[in-house]
């Protein structure tokens, strides 16, 4: 055998993972992380309930009232007012703005980032301007975007786009700039030329960094959507929070916050899942 002598120091080709199926893990051990993660929220809910009862506050509703509100918001049948059973409408509006703005930002920022990172001319022309635009907080764009797009969803959409755009762009540029130059030489000597270099080398090599940008941009998109929906938008979770505040419906304000938190959490999980699938080659990302 040709490889017998060298095989001494060879690591296994596939990561050895704890074999969950082979050896039965006690239920407590498996549920452990979940239980630990629940300790803080449960404690918080108890303190909240006790705090409201003790201070007899009328400003903050106890968690039980929020839970009732949440049920009505989602399924109706309790208060039967303008907000009953409207959760899915507001959620879908916010999700479509978040994902619309986020996907548009991805579609613009990734190619632009590849270009700026790889082509000196593009970098010299565009980088200074982008660096000047970057420190402007997304919220500072709000008045301008309302002037341009008018009151309504488009303005919220444009804020999401701006919020997601810069993290994705900067991380893409960073990823491209940090590609091992040897890989370009290797590709060139194997006959890879022109625009194929982008597809075959630059994009895959920068992918880990691009995903970092996508995650950051996506987080910002959820942050910004609330600000964007707070003025002149009839539907959306930000609008619900704002309207509820005007109506002193604090229970509904908190419901809106919880829904945004959950939606952001779940869609971040989706991105993490996608990235660990697409970056299974990378020792830092594969799980």
């Amino acid at each position, binding site marked *: 055998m040709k490889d017998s002598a060298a095989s001494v120091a060879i690591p296994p080709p596939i990561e050895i993972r704890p074999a969950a199926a082979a050896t039965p893990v006690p239920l407590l051990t498996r549920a452990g992380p979940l239980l630990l993660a629940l300790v803080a929220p449960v404690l918080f809910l108890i303190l909240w309930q006790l705090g409201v009862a003790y201070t007899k506050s009328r400003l903050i509703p106890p968690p039980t009232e929020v839970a009732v509100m949440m049920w009505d918001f989602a399924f109706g049948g309790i208060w039967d007012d303008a907000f009953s059973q409207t959760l899915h409408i507001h959620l879908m509006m916010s999700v479509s703005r978040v994902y619309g703005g986020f996907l548009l930002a991805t579609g613009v920022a990734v190619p632009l980032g590849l270009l700026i990172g790889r082509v000196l001319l593009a970098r010299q022309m565009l980088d200074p301007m982008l660096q000047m635009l970057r420190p402007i907080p997304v919220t500072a764009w709000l008045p301008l975007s309302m002037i341009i797009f008018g009151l309504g969803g488009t303005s919220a959409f444009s804020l999401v786009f701006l919020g997601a755009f810069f993290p994705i762009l900067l991380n893409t540029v960073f990823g491209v700039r940090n590609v091992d130059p040897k*890989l370009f030489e290797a590709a060139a000597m194997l006959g890879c030329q022109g625009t*194929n270099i982008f597809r075959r080398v630059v994009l895959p090599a920068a992918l880990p960094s691009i995903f970092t940008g996508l995650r950051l941009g996506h987080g910002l998109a959820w942050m910004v959507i609330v600000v964007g929906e707070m003025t002149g938008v009839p539907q959306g979770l930000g609008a619900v929070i704002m309207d509820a505040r005007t109506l002193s419906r604090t229970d509904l304000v908190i419901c809106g916050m919880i829904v945004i938190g959950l939606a952001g959490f779940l869609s971040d999980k989706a991105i993490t899942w996608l990235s660990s699938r697409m970056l299974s*080659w990378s020792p830092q990302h594969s799980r």
Partner: protein
Amino acid sequence: MSARPIIEIEHLSKEFELNGRHIHALRDVNLTIAKGEFVCLIGASGCGKSTLLRIMAGFETASSGAAKMWGSAISEPGPDRGMVFQDYALFPWLSVRDNIAFGPTERSRPKDEIRGKVESFIDIVGLRKFADAYPHQLSGGMKQRVAIARVLANDAEVVLMDEPFGALDAMTRERLQEELLDIWQRTGLTVVFVTHSIEEAIYLSDRVVVMTPAPGKIESDNAVHLARPRDVSAPDFNEIRRLLAGKLHSHHGRKAA
């Protein structure tokens, strides 16, 4: 082995500025390599051996003089000259199989041809069991096998190797040296191999080109006539080793001409 020169280096010089200092990396280098030859470039660091190799690869250009392959000037990297780097330079996002297939795919070869080539080179370098593994899951020796297979599967006529075994442990290095010789003898490749190990140079090559630094130039071009396979502990092997060590160190205390 025919004597037709595949690589010709004529009066080649390379100069550049580095941090305000003028560096004469190569001065008036002349070298002719025939098809099928195994040539080692050896010398202390700074003698320009890697620069010369990179000019042959087309990664760098000469300041004056010419580097030619089959009589035409080398102006850019190309699949006819495959490079094997010391640090492998494998594409980390591609499996062993896809790394080897990179070149043929890029040159739009027919799918059947690519598959046949790739599978046969996976066997030649003994990586059948690791064909679907990613580079980070491989040992250094295995990575370098992939790098070699990647170049061979791409129909390279000349394989340029820049201290390819320098980062490997002694056992793996010996193993790979033997495998490389085996492949070279079976395929009629031309190999230009940069190393700083005298023993490695004598063990592998038909000719050992000794280079000296400041400015980088060829000190001597030594044919090695030992029969293969070579025995590194044989008296005639040691004789050559002593001779080359003398040449390698001869520039010490001598002024650069």
